[in-house]
């Protein structure tokens, strides 16, 4: 039961093959058996979930329908949920309970979802391995010695290990797509502004975006029908009509032009990754898509630009964690300055502190023009690169990460190397365009999943869904399972 996709479970529930409570219990049984190894969750909300499942069963019995009625879903632990903890995998928020639901949490609940628990992540979404987590790291279900990627590593691992039917993650520089890739699941980062950020604990406001992490593209389409839309509580949410993403599953993709950016296939890419990606491109060609070469010349500046802008925003977004109002407060507080310094020294992990310092530096007077302002200019150039490329193609097809999931502790002490694992995903965030990672094979050297990345124009998630779904109809990469 726990290994079902959302669409399968919906059909089973409708046909009364099992109840929502049974499904939820099956998911928790799975969690009980694999969670000690995977550690995908920060905390579970079993009692609440069972109540939600009971309610779902009542509604099902009454013949009511809702898009996610009775479907067990996990949320990354930076999506606020009213009445239960939202920790961001940080000591500073370990006991924080929001008095409000994030807009997406509310949307899931209204759609009848059962919230299983809150998944692990790199602290405040800062990291690419879910090792920067205060409570515990998360392991890759495909190989417990390897990382699940990050920062939404808990959500990816939970979906991959069937500890939920689907999950929500957030993507600031690849935090949905890279862990989806590493764990062999589907991860969609919508257009910036498509999904409300209200209640998403901010890392970098101009880059953060919530999106689905699922077993199939079709499930992502279904979740996209639930989350998103203009939110009066988020000024940056776009006033763009939400299409029926399920309709995109029926679209024919033959004749669509796929742009292959040459800069994504240069040095540094693992040969096995390249092989799977090239095979994926062949598959798409066999579906009638036309290959065109495109250029994204400013790719080489993306990582630097990203770390300037993301850290600048993060450094001030995280100022509110000062020990005054909520969250951790140091006991060593003889005066105000000490309270601030000790609270933040104790409450934040190394990577968070590194990024706060970096961000503070690039915004400081005397450095602002050279870093932040220049970063914004390069961001504009990167956006223009994509605009130019999309004049010649409908979707861009590229690798998602240069390597497969690396070993635990392998990169944790080398921030630069860690930052480079996001090199292929970061540009989409800087440009604000949507991107999806879909399973595209297994590396023959390490047995780990490889992902294929598709990117499209602003608010054209439908093309990603159409192409991704066709791809999954014609391949079985997404059906590969880790043996836990």
């Amino acid at each position, binding site marked *: 039961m726990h290994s079902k996709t959302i669409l399968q479970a919906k059909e089973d529930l409708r046909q009364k093959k099992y109840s929502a409570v049974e499904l939820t219990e099956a998911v928790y049984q799975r969690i009980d058996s694999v969670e000690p190894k995977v550690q995908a969750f920060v905390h579970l909300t079993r009692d609440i979930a069972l109540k939600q499942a009971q309610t779902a069963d009542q509604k099902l019995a009454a013949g009511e329908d809702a898009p996610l009625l009775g479907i067990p879903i996990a949320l990354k632990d*930076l999506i606020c949920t009213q009445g239960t903890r939202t920790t961001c995998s940080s000591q500073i928020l370990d006991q924080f309970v929001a008095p409000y639901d994030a807009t997406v949490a509310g949307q899931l609940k209204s759609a009848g979802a059962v919230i299983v628990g809150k998944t692990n992540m790199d602290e405040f979404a800062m990291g690419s391995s879910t090792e920067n987590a205060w409570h515990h790291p998360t392991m890759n279900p495909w190989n417990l010695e390897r990382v699940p990627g990050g920062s939404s590593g808990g959500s990816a691992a939970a979906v991959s290990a069937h500890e939920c039917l689907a999950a929500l993650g957030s993507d600031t520089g690849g935090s949905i797509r890279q862990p989806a890739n590493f764990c062999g699941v589907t991860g969609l980062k919508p257009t910036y502004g498509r999904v409300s950020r209200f209640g998403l604990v901010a890392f970098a406001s101009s880059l953060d975006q919530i999106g689905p992490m699922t077993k199939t593209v079709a499930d992502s389409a279904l979740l996209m029908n639930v989350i998103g839309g203009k939110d009066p509580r988020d000024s940056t949410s776009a006033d763009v009509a939400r299409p029926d993403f399920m309709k995109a599953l029926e679209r024919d993709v033959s004749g669509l032009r796929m742009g292959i950016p040459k800069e994504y296939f240069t040095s540094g890419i693992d040969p096995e990754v390249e092989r799977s990606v090239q095979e994926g491109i062949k598959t798409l060609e066999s579906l009638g898509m036309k290959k065109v070469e495109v250029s994204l010349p400013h790719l080489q500046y993306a990582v630097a630009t990203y770390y300037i802008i993301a850290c600048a925003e993060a*450094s001030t977004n995280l100022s509110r964690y000062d020990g005054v109002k909520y969250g951790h407060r140091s006991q060593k507080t003889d005066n105000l300055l000490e309270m601030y310094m000790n609270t933040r020294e104790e409450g934040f992990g190394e990577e968070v502190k590194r990024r706060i310092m970096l961000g503070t530096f690039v915004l400081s007077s005397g450095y602002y023009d050279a870093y932040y302002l220049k970063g914004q200019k390069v961001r504009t150039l990167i956006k223009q690169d994509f605009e130019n490329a999309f004049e010649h193609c409908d979707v861009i097809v590229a690798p998602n990460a240069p390597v497969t999931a690396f070993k635990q502790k392998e990169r944790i002490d080398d921030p630069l190397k860690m930052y480079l694992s996001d090199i292929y995903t970061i540009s989409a965030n800087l440009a604000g365009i949507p991107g999806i990672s879909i399973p595209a094979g297994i590396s023959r050297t390490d047995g780990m999943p490889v992902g294929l990345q598709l990117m499209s124009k602003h608010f054209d998630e439908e093309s990603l869904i159409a192409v991704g779904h066709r791809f999954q109809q014609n391949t079985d990469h997404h059906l590969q399972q880790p043996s836990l």
Partner: protein
Amino acid sequence: MKYEVVIGLEVHAQLKTQSKIFCSCSTEFGKPANENTCPVCLGMPGVLPVLNKTALQLAMQACLATHCSIAPMNRFDRKNYFYPDLPKGYQVSQFALPLGLNGYINIQMNGTRKKIGLTRIHMEEDAGKLIHGENLGSPGKSYVDFNRTGIPLVEIVSEPDLRSAEEAREYLTQLKAILDYAEVSDCNMEEGSLRCDANVSLRPVGQEEFGTRTEIKNLNSFRFVQKAIEYEVERQTQVLEQGDAVVQETRLYDSNKGVTFTMRSKEEAHDYRYFPEPDLVPVVIGDEWIQETQDKLPELPEQKRERFTQDYEIPEYDAGVLTTSRAMADYYEKSVSLYPKPKIVSNWIMGELLKELKNDEREIGECSVKPEDLTDLLKLIDEGTINAKMAKTVFEDMYHSGKPARDIVKEKGLTQITDSSAIESMVDQILQINADQVEQYKNGKEKVFGFLVGQIMKESKGQANPALVNKLLKERIG
């Protein structure tokens, strides 16, 4: 050496909105601590600001009423610093692109008009308030009240065009009047809706470049602004005359001691690390919106002053006093419409009414004597029911008791004596008692006539019709 004083003021005025600038919390003053708060203004994790359009509208009115040009795009910045009353660790403000630029207001000094430039007007959110435990019976602790957090403000920055403490005060008076007229702010200093920082420097007369300035922060009354500047000018003069240099720093004013003192030096100044607020999208302000706001702008104090001198033919001084607040001007115009003798009405408002209000430190809006009541009183004089002197006593009574003039006159039996025979008998009586004075008068000492009138009025307890007394006395003693 003779020095010229150079002053620039930064005024923070609260925009009179019902709700805060980025959330729907009430802006009502005087609520229990932290009652007007929500996750947004408390800076809880994951919450986002949404701009209150009314705040932007009022800020535009402030800009247009002070002849500022309006930025085509309204964008906010974050001003970063740590303080417990600042829940997000940054204040949402405007730095690079203020809403308004290059405006001015006119002030009147000793009958001449002077133009004071405005550098900029920008919008920002207010911070909260710290309450120290000593006041709550728990010394050593500090508490925060976030009710003010997120109250919309405009900061109005003047050019260094002011040359004396009096000019600074006059500038504030005019600015307050403009904000009041344009319906931008209540400008209530007690409730903290108007606050001022003053930049003060001296330079030798004739010198072009400015001297080193100090900034005096958080002045919360016009009087303190004037006093603090006067003190600071005196202090800087002494420093310079001793051959020392003024230190650039931020100072505070101690209103009890009447002195300014160092708050922080230039070296300790914050680096606020301003950058564009990514949680708010820029708002485009089209020409149409600006024009519409301009068209809806009510008559401003200067225009009103001119109209009063022309339409009511009252002196410029009167017009100035009567237009210091919109409520006062409205009071005056209403009164004149009920009793069309503009100068008499002006005299009564500037005299009796303002005297009472000043004693009580109240605003005209809080006055129980309404235009209808005042003009009824003036009509009683014209009708001859009471005389002007009696009217002043009646007015005092009206102001304190809130009763209508006619009731007071009736209750106290204050009706003027216009009966000739009654007055004649009083005249007889006084002439009898003051036979010597009558003799003196007849011998040409004319001043005695006034004395006799006074005696008769006194005898009548002030109620005799003065004109009649004069007439009858004249008949009797020629």
